């Protein structure tokens, strides 16, 4: 029982620290971009440009949201 609680707490800490952070939307946008990149690669379309663009888009949107929430 204690081990199960430790595992649950560990997984929760790992998810919050490394994936969700303080804006889960960033992780969600990156996941969508990874899927889209995979799709482009499978379709034999040049795909290297998509991830950097998605990263910049996710960062700008997240920063803008953070400033709006500061009000």
């Amino acid at each position, binding site marked *: 029982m204690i081990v199960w609680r430790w595992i649950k707490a560990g997984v929760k*800490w*790992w998810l919050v*620290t*490394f*994936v969700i*952070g*303080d*804006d889960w939307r*960033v*992780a969600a946008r*990156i*996941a969508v971009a*990874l899927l889209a*990149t*995979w799709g482009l*690669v499978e379709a034999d379309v*040049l*795909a*290297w440009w998509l*991830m*950097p663009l998605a*990263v*910049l888009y*996710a*960062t*700008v949107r*997240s*920063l*803008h949201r*953070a*400033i*709006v929430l*500061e*009000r």
Partner: protein
Amino acid sequence: MNVSVFVSTFLAASIEVIEMVAIIVAVGVTRQWRGALAGTSAGLLVLAVLIAALGTALQGVPLTPIRLVVGALLLVFGLQWLRKGVLRVSRDGWASGIGEQRVEEDVGDGFDWTGFVLAFRGVSLEGLEIAVIVVAFGAAAHAIASAAVAAAASVLLIGALGLASYRLVARIPRRALQLFVGALLTTFGTFWAGEGLRVNWPGNDLSLLWLAAVYVAAGLVLVRVVSDWRRGTAQRPRVQQPAAEGVSR
């Protein structure tokens, strides 16, 4: 000693070693050296066990899905730091956080598990790639020993350079460092995740350079943009005040 195997393995391994050392130094300087070095040791231990257990069968290890998972996680985490770095520099300025002042409020006096995991992942992935390079280059020319010595020389040389550079890196104000380390982790994350998806990066490993340049430049631009957004939101109530007063009169 097979010289051509030594040189080619040294050069190929050096790229991976630079990535590994960059992550360890970045995590150590911005978070906590104890966690970063413990993560490094744990990564090396896992690597040693893998090498001992698999030997030349390491060539069969599927690196592509490992790169995708490690890359995606590093990318999302690196973006958190980049974002925090931009927000804090735009609020407090570039010079804040000089000396022992901490960047991350969540790094307490206890053991830093986040730094541990970051260093562990970087070392185990890059170490695995180095091991695969040694096996691939060494086995093809029947000169595993030459390849192993070359990889060890690369680790020692670049590790020493990393050790020598960390004091220099530590002089950078912490807030600015968080932004740059965030850009660095985002760069590695983007590259590895792309490699995991079999993306053909222009310039192959050299694309790490232009990716880093793009993210650092974007970070610098965003500091200005976010400062403007802040000023805009701060000024808005002052602009609205006279109108409100006018209505009340």
